[in-house]
């Protein structure tokens, strides 16, 4: 009790202390808000940068797919029957006649099989839809999710 009285007396004798306390409190709030804002900006900026990179990569994938299709077709043109035949003839090859063939039994030889052109199994991909919300939501979303239900619960409990 004595201590409280001393403190009251000290404040009444030095009113600037009250102002200082208010200013410090205000500055603390400002620093806290700035801190939160800084974190928020950092997180959203990073998310935006990654998102932009994803968009750029998607464009690159599309470009690579087009290039891939182009190169496949170009290779097929170079290997086409109409292109290969004159090239083979120019190199001195001639079509083999049936009488020129000698058939030899080669044990273990496996004749050409049906081609397997299905692409190899793709690595497991995590698609966006299956990502947990924690990885996608913004700070505001998180606050909304955490605080709004708490407030509604509190309102429901109170008569």
């Amino acid at each position, binding site marked *: 009790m004595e201590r409280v009285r001393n403190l009251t007396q000290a404040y009444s004798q030095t009113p600037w202390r009250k102002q200082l306390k208010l200013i410090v409190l205000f500055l603390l709030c400002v620093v806290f808000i700035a801190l939160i804002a800084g974190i928020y900006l950092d997180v*959203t900026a990073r*998310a*935006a*940068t*990654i*998102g*932009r990179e*994803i*968009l750029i990569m*998607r464009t690159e994938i599309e*470009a690579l*797919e*087009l*290039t891939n*299709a*182009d190169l*496949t*077709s*170009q*290779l*097929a*043109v170079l*290997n*086409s*029957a*109409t292109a290969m*035949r004159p090239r083979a003839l120019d190199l001195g090859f001639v*079509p*083999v*006649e*049936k009488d020129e*063939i000698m*058939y030899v*039994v080669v044990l273990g030889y496996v*004749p*050409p099989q*049906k*081609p*397997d*052109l*299905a*692409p190899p*199994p*793709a690595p497991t991909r995590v*698609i*966006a*839809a299956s*990502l947990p919300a924690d990885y*996608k939501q*913004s700070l505001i979303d998180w606050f909304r999710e955490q605080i709004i239900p708490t407030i509604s619960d509190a309102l429901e409990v109170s008569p």
Partner: protein
Amino acid sequence: MNTESTWRYTFLATLYSLMAIFIIGQLVRIQTNPEQVEHFLGQAKIYEADLRPIQPARGLLYDRWGRLLAGNITVYEVGVELAQVRNPHSIALTLNVVLGLDYAQVLDAASQEVSPEAVYVVLADYVSQEKIELLERYSTELENSTSRKKGEEPPSLQGLIYKPHLQRSYPEKRLASNVLGFVNREGLGYYGVEAKFNELIAGKTMEVWMPRDPNLALELPEIPVGASIILTIDRAIQAEIEAILDAAVEANGADSGTIVVANPQTGEILAMATTPRLDLNEYWQYAEVFKGSTPFNRAISQAYEPGSVYKVLTMAAALDAGAVTPETIFLDVGVIEVGGIYIYNWNSAAWGPQDMQGCLQHSLNVCLAWVATQLGTKNFYDYMRAFGIGRLTGVDLSGEVTGRLKIPGDTDWYEADLGTNSFGQGVAVTPLQMVMAVSAIANEGKLVAPRIVRSFIDKGNQYDTETRIVGMPIKPETARTLSEILARSLEEEASTALVEGYRVAGKTGTAEIPTPYGYSLSATNASFVGWGPMDDPRFLVYIWLEKPTSSPWGSVVAAPVFHDIVERLVVLMDIPPDDVRREILASH
């Protein structure tokens, strides 16, 4: 703090407060006014995302060994982003020189004022990579050029946009064009495999709402590409067959030609060549190549009266039903009356006593008409239907026709038809129907559905098609007996179809061509059907030359083509001569 300072601080605080109140008031006003809300939401929507149609890459077509027959290449849409255009004159001039576009039209398009209706204008599409590289080079050169006149807009291609997309490409050009079909610029398949499986190959075009918010970048859906198809066609065999066909058509002065090579045991079509053929990369030449009612693929879309090759089916039916045996003797007096009409032999001669081999070897119409009468009308047509005549084969190609088999009960069927049908006149079949029907004789009586698709590749998996046995029109013994008769016929006739070292069976056909005024006396259809090796048939070849002028006879114009084809087939299919094969089998 003096009074003046207090007044200033109060004034500034009031001013800033009023400004804040004004801003907050505006915010409240905008957000509570329904019209304003709608307007700004609409504005936000415009910049929020793009609605982008995405056409998945069209699936590829391969030959049986995985060699590409139809792929895709990158082409470009060229347009102008009106807001960025600096010098429409430069754009119009450059596109006129490089792409051959009309200068005035491009200038008009590129000079438009930007409006909600006009933001981007398409100037050209399907521009090749080389042309785009040329445009880009010009663009760089113009940007770097320093020669500018005062007051004049510097030359620039700024605003010119190139949007890449895929276009169908056929590396083999004309090869197997009648089987593949083509795809137009709207992505729609025409004829052949491209039309038959258009929906499967094309995939599903989707319109995707692509958000500009980078935080939503992950939400884009994956759009699967179209399914790819591995065909049963062997590119090497197809190329050889087309070369042989073209040579035969030219050498014999034929109007057209068709050759089908199939594996009679599996129904796989190894080659299907017809004339004319189209460079599929220039499909717009279609009307010039296929004049009038010329079908895209005669092998499935043109029915014709096959003539004596059809006798194989008549004899198969009669032997199977027991109406005749190989030893049955028929006294050929050169003419027979069936249903009120007289039927004569091809040379109008009487051939005297003939067994069934003799009837086929000398291709005697009179004998086969008699055989059909011995078989009976109902039996004859039941067998023909069992062989698949008059019905679609069900091959995976677009544009197949049924042909025509008149049967008792049809308004246009007469008793005389039994006689003429027995030797392949008065009945219309497609070459592929004949391949399917005759395959049953080469394949121990089993009727196998012809197929052109070996495998589908869809969503990362390969699905192989299976051999489909669709019937058993004759018994295995009948098939073997008839094959032997036909092989001996060729050997005793010393046919030009024979191939040294390989035993083959076959039959020639020469058919008169029906016209609105009766059968033509000057033109014929020459055909040949044959298969081999006899003890293990690996190929069946059907040849049809339309209206040859060098000779009307199938034995003269079509049989040598069979010989040439088999000489190449045994090499390309690694089939050793019969004696070598037997030796190998005996040693293992």
